[in-house]
């Protein structure tokens, strides 16, 4: 676990790189596999998680002196469930189509290990500033990881990246060139496992090399 006593800024950046919840800590794998079939889904899920994580860490940090051992987990869970419901209502109101595609995974944020883990490890022990920084860092790290996976899968799977917002704006990339050769399997379940496994492999390799070089 990277610096517990470093600056608040470091807490934030650690969440993105050194403690990236998806690629380093390997937490919250279920949504990672499920919603990375398109970049759009990944971004919306990322936004939802940033919201819930931040609010959860904020509230937990504010209540940290009142927490008793028996009820801690219950308090965390109740808080998270509430903010997830709010996030879900918001998504259904403003990005209805995407929220349908995300299916049960928005409410599943409630049991996403990332949020409970950060509440337990950081928010229940530190002040509001650090807790919020950590939440934002992990949330952004999660979003970046998911967007990367989503980009790979969508690009290889459909030959383009489409961000079809409800407002009608979309950005398409090179569809005609790739479409005949698209690997449809990438946007289906096996593709999810494959992409995540490959990316984690690459990340581990890079980290091992860095550790080697750092040790010299």
């Amino acid at each position, binding site marked *: 676990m990277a610096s517990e006593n470093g600056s608040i800024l470091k807490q934030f950046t650690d969440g993105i790189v050194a403690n990236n919840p998806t690629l380093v800590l390997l937490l919250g794998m279920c949504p990672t596999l499920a919603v990375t079939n398109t970049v759009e889904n990944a971004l919306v899920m990322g936004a939802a998680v940033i919201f819930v994580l931040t609010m959860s860490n904020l509230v937990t940090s504010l*209540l940290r002196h*009142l*927490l*008793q051992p*028996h*009820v801690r987990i*219950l*308090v965390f869970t*109740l*808080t998270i*469930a*509430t903010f997830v*419901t*709010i996030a879900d*209502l*918001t998504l*259904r*109101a*403003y990005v*209805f*189509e995407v929220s349908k595609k995300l299916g049960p995974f928005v409410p599943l944020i409630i049991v996403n290990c990332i949020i409970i883990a950060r509440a337990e490890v950081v928010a229940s022990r530190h002040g509001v500033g650090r807790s919020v920084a950590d939440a934002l860092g992990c949330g952004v790290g999660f979003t970046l990881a998911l967007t990367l996976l989503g980009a790979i899968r969508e690009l290889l*799977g*459909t030959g383009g990246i489409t961000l079809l917002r409800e407002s009608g704006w979309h950005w398409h990339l090179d569809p005609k060139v790739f479409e005949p050769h*698209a690997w*449809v399997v990438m*946007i*289906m379940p096996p593709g999810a496992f494959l992409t995540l496994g490959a990316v984690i492999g690459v990340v581990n390799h890079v980290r091992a090399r860095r550790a080697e070089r750092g040790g010299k």
Partner: protein
Amino acid sequence: MRKFVRESWLILALGLVFATLLACAQTAFQPRIQDNQARALNEAIGLVVPGTVRTERVRVEGYDRDVFRCLAEGQTVAGWAVEAVGTGFADRIRLVVGLSPDARSITGLKVIENVETPGLGNKIAEEAWAAQYRGLDAGRPIVVRKRPPAADRNEVQAVTGATISSTAVTEIVNRALERVRPGLERL
């Protein structure tokens, strides 16, 4: 009792606060959400029954899904929109079938929900494929063929490589029409 209160007052208090918060969020967002849900269906109806300006939900005897009377400008009946659901190759398929005012012929078809194989089965959601249903006789079963449909026959051509998905859609349509038309003609 006191021990119980001491240990759980926080949970109870939080529960109350959060429940109130949620109730507020619900009240705030519910109208938009309902609009969104209606919009998807309305767009589909607009596509399958051209000229629709307003719709009224009607109860049709013998058919338990949604049926809409579609009204054009000036209150004339532009047609009927029938919602139908069934199983496709992968999971469930939900579609809307448009019928002429006399319920004799099909004015359009739109698959609104499907999780068929991307690139193959999910071509059933495309305009070009669904357009085949336009003008077909709603009184006879529609048949799926692997070659272009013959003129004067109630036929559609399956999506290449997605025969099961195509057949599923047709079966859903046939079953729905069979069950809804008797009750519809009485309206």
